[in-house]
Each structure stands twice: as structure tokens, then as C-alpha cells.
């Protein structure tokens, strides 16, 4: 797994966020969600800043952060390949999709590719079981996949990235 440099956290952003949510009860989850929305993960520095600003023990913030599977403590790839491994997808071969991605991108579940383009994330049910096996990439659902179609999807995303990064 590639070791990526962590992002520098914007102090003003954190303080504004704390001002918005801080005076209301039980908003730790929401604050973390907003941080992740901005940075793609929750940097450790952000956690320190909030803890200090709102006087919440770091242990508590860390406890909440690590409890939920959708919070990430490390930067993630541009395209997160969420492959559903729910029951219906499992029965219809979701494991083969995961294997294909592992083989093609040389990453294990939870890891990023060196170029930070892809992250492999097997997830529990995405609720489109009738189209099993399926996957979701940046909120777009892809149904009735096969290992070959999965490969095609990766290629499509690669060329999408290339054309987006080319100067106009």
C-alpha cells in the first residue's frame, strides 16, 4: 500500500464547522462526515483541532471515528470501487469481481493504487440485489457485472481520468 502524504488541514474550515455544529448536542458524527466530504478522509490533525476547540476528549472522537466503517483515516483513491458483497451478490459471484480487481490493480481490499487513482472497497449490501452482482463508484451504480465488465469499467474510469487531466 502506498504511503501518501497527509493533507494540511484548514484551521478556518474546522473552526467554522465547530461554530456551526458545536453548540448542538450529538453532532460528532455529522462533523466527521463534513470533514470527510471535504478531504475524502478524516485527517488526524482535524481530530486534534476539533477536540481542542470543542473540548471533547480525543479518545471519544477516536472512538466514534473507528466505530463506523465509512470513516477513513487515510487518503483514498480518486475512484473508490465499492463492490457489493451482500448475500445476493455473493450468490451471484461478487467474489470473482473482487479477485479480478485485486489481480488487475495489484491491491488488497481497503488499499489504494500507487497512483492514488483507485481504492478497492468491498461493501455490505448496496440494496440493488436484483441486479447482482453490482458495484458503485462515486454514487453511480453498475449492475449485472462480470469480471470482464469490471475490467471494462476500470479501463473506462482510467480513460475518463486521462481525458480530464489533459489540458484543454
Amino acid at each position, binding site marked *: 500500500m502506498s504511503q501518501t502524504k497527509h493533507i494540511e488541514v484548514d484551521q478556518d474550515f474546522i473552526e467554522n464547522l465547530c461554530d456551526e455544529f458545536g453548540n448542538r448536542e450529538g453532532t460528532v458524527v455529522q462533523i*466527521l462526515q463534513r470533514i470527510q466530504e471535504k478531504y475524502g478522509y478524516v485527517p488526524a490533525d482535524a481530530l486534534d483541532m476539533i477536540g481542542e476547540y470543542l473540548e471533547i476528549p480525543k479518545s471519544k472522537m477516536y472512538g466514534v471515528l473507528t*466505530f463506523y466503517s465509512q470513516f477513513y483515516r487515510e487518503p483514498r483513491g480518486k475512484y473508490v470501487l465499492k463492490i457489493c458483497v451482500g*448475500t445476493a451478490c455473493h450468490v*451471484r459471484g461478487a467474489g470473482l469481481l473482487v479477485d479480478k480487481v485485486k489481480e488487475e490493480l495489484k491491491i488488497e481490499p481497503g488499499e489504494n493504487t500507487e497512483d492514488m487513482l483507485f481504492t478497492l472497497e468491498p461493501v455490505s449490501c448496496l440494496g440493488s440485489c*436484483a441486479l447482482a452482482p453490482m458495484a458503485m463508484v462515486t454514487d453511480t451504480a453498475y449492475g449485472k457485472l462480470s469480471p470482464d465488465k469490471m475490467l471494462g469499467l476500470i479501463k473506462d474510469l482510467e480513460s475518463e481520468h486521462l481525458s480530464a487531466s489533459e489540458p484543454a
Partner: protein
Amino acid sequence: MLTEVLEDSSLHLEAHSSLPVIHIGMATCGLASGAKALHELILKEVASRNLAVKVVPTGCIGMCHNEPLVDITMPGKNRVSYRNVKPNTLTQILDAHFNKNEFAKKYAVCQIVIPGAEAFVGLPLMQEIPFFKGQVKIVSKRCGMIDPLSIDDYIAMDGYEALKKVLSSMTPEQVIDEVTKSGLRGRGGGGFPTGVKWNLTRKSPGPEKYVVCNADEGDPGAFMDRSVLEGDPHSVIEGMILASFAVGHAKKGYIYCRAEYPLAIKRLQKAINDARERNFLGNNILGSDLSFDLEIKEGAGAYVCGEETALLASLMGERGMPWPKPPFPAQKGVWGKPSVINNVETLANIGHIILGGGDWYASYGSEKTKGTKTFALTGSIKNTGLIEVPAGTPLREIVFSIGGGMVEKKIPFKAAQLGGPSGGCIPTSGLDTPVDFENVVSAGAIMGSGGIVIMDEAACIVDTAKFFLKFTQDESCGECTPCRVGSKIMLDILTRITEGKGQEGDLDELVRLSMYIKSNSLCGLGGAAPNPVLSTIRYFRDEYEAHIRDKRCPGTVCNDLIKYVVIEEDCTTCGLCEPVCPSGSVTWEKGEVAHIDLTTCIRCKACVDACKFRAII
């Protein structure tokens, strides 16, 4: 029955429209099948043909296997439903309706009756086709029929009528009586009578109360709530307003929705904003003394949060750990105040019950489970999708009539998995089980929230049990030892069995551990975790024994137990296995039995999966 339900509410929508309407299914299942590109294409076609039409995106009508679905309604005619619509078929469909004044028979599934409209000859009605014949749509009535983003569409199909009725002519006690009379029980799987729950919350002292909607639909293989949230979000909102009124004017409500449902959250937020604008939410709703508002709380990925006390902890920004009951949420819930927690489907039923009456609702269903239940029908079955049937409908009818039987004709039914990780498997001998709360439990599973995954003979029962144990083990919050450690030991044993290292006595040990975990876990997650193992040992002991004693996997799923040998008698010499082999180990000549060279075979299973005749073991 379906005719009655549909016509009764009548599709005023199209009846009012003098323009042709094109509906396109754009719930997650539709979108995953390419509905977005199709929607753009429809808009382009409409513009280039210069057509005066309304193009309306809808939710899910349930026929997920037929997505993307496009419906066309010409003024004065019934609505025609088209399946698996592709760019080239779309032009033919539009030609048929707009140039030739007919319908495209080749791609049409059925026609949906619009009162007073002319029917097409030679096309079955929706309620006549096998998929819909046994269904009764109450809670999913509007799904796929209306534009979920339009509050006017909702209102045109009796939306917010129940709220008006309650505010103008009913007392909170009368509302609770009506819900009690309907016999409605918690649709999230708990099955607790909703009327009783509401009454408990109403009787709890204190002026400050909360209404919470549990939209943390976490069971793998279940998507009923997603369909309702994406297809008819206002029905859930209306149900929550009615609950607020009934439990004693709760001022605030929360919808706790899992983060895996981005589209549902988006549509729900739009619906809340629109409802506020029309004063269905906010202060002094419709001029009454009821004030109620809603907030969506997005989950962060923890299955245990579907358990109500864990959900409350998460809602309050904590780790989602359950607490022992009592106190029940009806006594001490959000911020320590009395709170009523209902599941999406339960709440979406309330408006219909208030309008139709408790007796009407209770006229459907079985003795102890009244009304209808939605199910997500998936797995190795032909018609996968979302269905709604009267409680007590036999499993056989669901699988073979509505579901259309097995997807691979040659591979027979093995088991139906009901209730997800808390449920169990029902074998062929249990196909006549009426699907309601009590009967499914007697058969060794639970009705649960409504996920039904069909498995054929090519599935492995031990692998399935291992799958669910792995799931609960991953999702165990770790608070209590029986669940945290017990499920891990069970998973280790099951893994060993699937790897061919099973020992005599493993089954007894699994049963012993199961009993211990069931009786000593803190919450429902641990208490039900061993169910998938217990039910499969009960019905499929021989399959476990085949793994343990013969080191053989009858479903040819467990890779370590596959011998990669072609059975001559079963091989049809079709040759399907040869081209899929990546290492060139399969040799085959036309008319000859295939052969696998085990010295070069990399045991990838490609040939096993390719063989339709299960001739490679």
C-alpha cells in the same frame, strides 16, 4: 385484488394530463441498468421529433429484472409498460405510439389500467401477468407510478389526505385505535404491534417527545425500504407526522438513513423541503396546533445501528452501541425523552390505514400477521425484484408464480434464505410455509425485514452459513463477549469445514456455541447471529457431513474441496469449459468428453462456473 387497490386510488395523474406522458424508472436499480443515459436519449428524441409530452422519472415498480423500464401513456389510453429498453428499441417504441397510434408489441410487458381510458387489444393487464397476479400493492402502490420528486404527484394519489383527515376530525386516541385495529406490526422484522408502541409512547410522561424513522436497512439482500424512500418519500414523511400527532404532538422527528443510500437521502431531503413549503411540516401544520419538523441523520456504516437502541446512540453522535432494555425507547429515547421508533415500511403504511380504515387493512393477511408485506426477491430466480403480497402467502407462490421459478432451468431449487443474517434457510420441504411472522419462525427462519434470497443446487449451504457468520462477526460492535468472541469461534469452525479440515464433533460444537450465544448476547444482533447456522444444520446436516467426512462440496462452491474432475456421464460434450480456462488445462474435442490436466490447473473455478450441467466436481 390488485385491480381493486389500484383502481380504488385511481391513477388521477394521467387522467388529468392532456399530454402524453413518458415515465422512466430511475430508482437505483433503474440507474444501474442504464436509465440515466436512456433518460437523456428520451429527451433528445422528444426534442428532435418535436413532441409535446411530459417526461417523468419515477421510482421502482418492482420489476427490477426488467429495468430499465419505460412507460408510455397516450391521452385517453391505458399506460403501456416496456422492459429492458435499449436505444434502438426506444425509437421503435416511440414510432409505434407517436407515428402509428399503436404500441410496440415486441417489447411491451403489460398495460396499466387508467380509469375511463381505452385498453389496448392483445396486451395483458398489469394484474394479469404472473409477476403481479398474486401481489397486493398498498405500501408500494405509488412506487413507479409517480414522480417521487413531485409533491403534486403524491397529492394527486391521495397524498396528505390522511393528515388532513386526522387534523380535522380525529383525536390522537382514535388514530392509535385505528392503527391497533389494523393489526400492523413492525415491518423492520421485530413484529411488535405498532399501535401498542405508539400508545406506550403516548402514555410516557413529559411534554417533549420524538419520532424516529429507522431507515438503516442493513440486511444484505434487502432493499424494500430503499424502494419506498426512492419511489414514494412523502408517504414516510406523512406517516411520521401522523405518529407525532398520535404520540402527543412530538415536535421533532429524525430519519436515520444509511449512507449507502445516497439517492434515497437526496429524494427524502427534497420531499422534506417541499412538505415544509406547503406547511405539511413546520409550525401549526395546516392551521392546526400541531407543529412538527424533520431532520435526516445519515448513518456512517454500522449494521448494528439497525437495532433501535444502537440507532439512538448513533443518532446522538456516539458509537452505535446498543443498551440493555428496559428502559425502552418509548420511555427513554432520543436525549432521554420518550421516542417512538418505526421502520420505513411501517410508517409508509400509516396513511393508507387511516384512509382505508383499520378493518380494511386487517382484511388482508393471515391470522396473526395482518396486511401486506414487501419482499426483496433475489438470488437464482428469474424475476428478481420488489414484491408486495398479503402476509401468509405461501413461499411456493412467491418463488414459482411471482418469481417465475429458477433462473437456470436445469438447476433446481435448494433453499430460500429469509431474514438475512438473523434468519435461516427454508428447504424444498418447507415451500408451503405461509410467509408471516409466526409460520416462518416455525420453519426455522424469520420473516425479518423482507429479504428473500433464492439458492439453487449449485449453491453451498455451508458457504452461505459462513457468509452470514462472517457478516455478523464483522459487524459485531464488540460490547458483549458472547457475540464478539462466540461468533469468531463459530466462524473459525465453519471456515475450517469449507477448507476440508472439518472434524467429527464440529457440528455439536457449533450447536452448543449457538445456544450459548443466543441466550447470552446483549442485543438482537448477537441473539440472532447463530440462526443461519442452526437452520442449515437442521435441514442440511448431510451437506455439512459431506464437507466434514467426505471432503466434498455438493454445490461445488468451496474451492478447496473441488477435485476438478469431469464426470463422464454428466458431460454433454458441449465444450463451454474449454475456452474459459486461463491456463489451457482443459482439453476438449467436438463430441468428446472434456479433460482437465491437474498438473497445470490453477484451480480458478472458471470451468466449474462455466459448466451448465454441473459435470465438473
